[in-house]
């Protein structure tokens, strides 16, 4: 097997059967924004905007580094944004502008 072959045969999500460390039985209660993100995923699915399989592929398309370094719901929300851009439902510039607006309002105490 060549050194790059597994990059082609195994995408980042496809880890069934690979060697891995011992299981650590960790869990955490969802942060409020993580729960909102989960509810957003469900509502996007209900309205046939992004379904579960599109979401999974959207996470995979983030690439190995982001999959490895982002937390679970961080991966989800970045994948949703990318999918919404691809479907021309949202424009990257609109999201960037809204992020700046929200950050300004947070600093100004206009929202929490």
């Amino acid at each position, binding site marked *: 097997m060549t050194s790059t072959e597994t990059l082609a045969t195994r995408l980042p999500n496809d880890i069934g059967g690979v060697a891995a460390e*011992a*299981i650590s039985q960790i869990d955490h209660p969802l942060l409020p*924004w993580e729960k909102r*993100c989960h509810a*957003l995923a469900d509502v996007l*699915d209900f309205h046939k905007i992004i379904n579960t399989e599109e979401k999974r592929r959207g*996470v995979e398309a983030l690439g190995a580094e982001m999959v490895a370094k*982002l937390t679970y719901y961080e991966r989800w929300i970045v994948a949703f944004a990318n999918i919404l851009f691809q479907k021309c*439902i949202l424009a990257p510039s609109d999201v960037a502008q*809204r992020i700046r607006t929200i950050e300004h309002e947070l600093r100004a105490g206009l929202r929490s």
Partner: protein
Amino acid sequence: MHDHDDHAPETAAAEPPGFYEVLETAVRELLVEQGLFEAAEIHRQIDVLDSRTPALGAMVIARAWTDAAFRARLLADGRSACEELGISFYDDTGLIVLENTARVHNLIVCTLCSCYPRPVLGLPPDWYKLKPYRARAVSEPRKVLAEFGTVLPDDVEIRVSDSTAVVRYLVLPLRPAGTENFTEAQLAALVTRDAMIGVVPVRLPEPGDLP
């Protein structure tokens, strides 16, 4: 005069939202403004998520242990049998219920991501979503089970079922011996999330166990 000092925990603990939290807010607000859905739908879905806990799955298992006809319907069509008990499948997934026997032990996993029977168990624990469990459950399930303290005899077959976006699994554990006189509610109290994932059996509480 009420003293609003800086020891107020809601302010002392508050950190500004991070980039991804702000991104979630931005995406959600823009979608709502476009009229794709209403903000209230997000709040209602959070309520739905909060209403789903392993207690629902435990109720299903206890009914299956005490009602043979229900058990047969559950194994034939997991979703419709759960719906009989008032459990809605908000995510429109199918449910296959896997029966443990003296010879077969079932384990569920999602190797590709985190698919899980959320309508009956709620959201999965972190370890179910992380690499070690997803990677190893399918290739060395006995070692994985041992890490959960579950050691099965060699003549018990272990079947691992890999969930998909549209088909989810739930394990029907073995009813423990010594529970013949238990009520359905007493049985349900024994059934844990992890037993319905298949990483542990259902056990009777040991003397001295905390309630």
